[in-house]
């Protein structure tokens, strides 16, 4: 159903509406709402790409083996405007991801909630870069 117009209407949300749902593409077609999961592990790298950034993280499987997962996130552009840089999410940071696994069964997921182990929520939970990349 390719009517971009209707999609756009929903996107803008009403003054009273809860939240804009429109996204760059239908996430429910990429990830499976019937496969929720929670992943705990350490960041390998934050791939700062568009249309979506991807957090590569290492998760210990039940057998203790480390498995690499890719977590789909948002465009990094506005984080740049808020003073963040590529190095704002340092490798090794311990994070918890609640989300849904990719439909093709690969080690990919969308992170509905991504927090640090102490509960702080990602990026905006990060301490803003005091000196570097500061916007006058």
């Amino acid at each position, binding site marked *: 159903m390719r009517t971009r117009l209707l999609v756009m209407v929903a996107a803008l949300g009403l003054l009273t509406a809860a939240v804009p749902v429109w996204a760059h593409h239908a996430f429910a077609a990429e990830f499976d709402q019937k496969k929720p999961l929670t992943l705990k592990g350490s960041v390998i790298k934050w791939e*700062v790409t568009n249309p979506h950034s991807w957090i590569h993280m290492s998760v210990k499987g039940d057998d203790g083996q480390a498995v690499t997962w890719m977590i789909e996130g948002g465009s*990094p552009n506005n984080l*740049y405007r808020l003073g*963040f*840089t*590529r190095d704002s999410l340092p490798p090794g940071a311990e994070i918890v991801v609640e989300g849904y696994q990719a439909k093709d069964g690969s080690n990919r997921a969308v992170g509905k909630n991504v927090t640090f182990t102490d509960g702080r929520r990602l990026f905006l939970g990060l301490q803003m870069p005091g000196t570097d*990349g500061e916007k006058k």
Partner: protein
Amino acid sequence: MYKLRKIVVAGFLVLGTVPAWGQAPAYRAPRTADGKPNLNGIWQANNSADWNLQGHSAAQGPVYALGAVFSIPPGLSVVEGDEIPYLPAAAAKQKENHANWVKLDPEVKCYLPGVPRATYLPYPFQIVQSRENIMMAYEYAGAVRTINMGAPTKAPADSWMGWSNGHWDGETLVVDVTSQNEDTWFDRAGNFHSEALHVVERYTPRSADTLNYEVTIEDPKVFSRPWKISMPLYRRVEKDARLLEYKCVEFTEELLYGTLRKKASK
């Protein structure tokens, strides 16, 4: 003393007017309203540097069915001294890139070309020059970059078109480009770089309808020393010259996603 000065001046005049072979006498471009050389316009390189920065002979193209249309044209080198000073390991990688260029060249996939390749792609680009920002929009893939002419700023992360800070050096627009990601190439012959690439471009008007484009390329991870390319850029002087939309993404989808297509049900 007076006599000596006259001779010197005369000598200078003679020297000044005799152009060294190939160089036009220093040209002073018309000014923009804020007094800078006016680079506004639609420009295009007219060489086969995008096929191969170095001198190259004509060669068979990648697809036999396309015959002469997509054979590789010959080209003079745009590299000064005709030598790209690769470090040994990098030289091997370049040969491998060149051998598999159709599979590896990002331009085949309509990815953003990076700098300086965006300038000498076989398509026009337009310079829209204001005081604070000089925007360069390229017909290819809708690539675009805005050169910050104010106080230099730092990039938050690498990107395909890099991070451009510019300033004027007399008649020349000097653009310092950093933070280009390592996935772009310089041409279709596998010439590549790392994310440590540092490019300094110089755009200098040399006549009403041509610019001299010189680029110093530096990347300690790939090259043993900085090297330079240079070429003229020609203004597109057709009466209604303009950039048209060339969003080539859709022309790569069969290549990139075709195998994921649903098989026709048997």
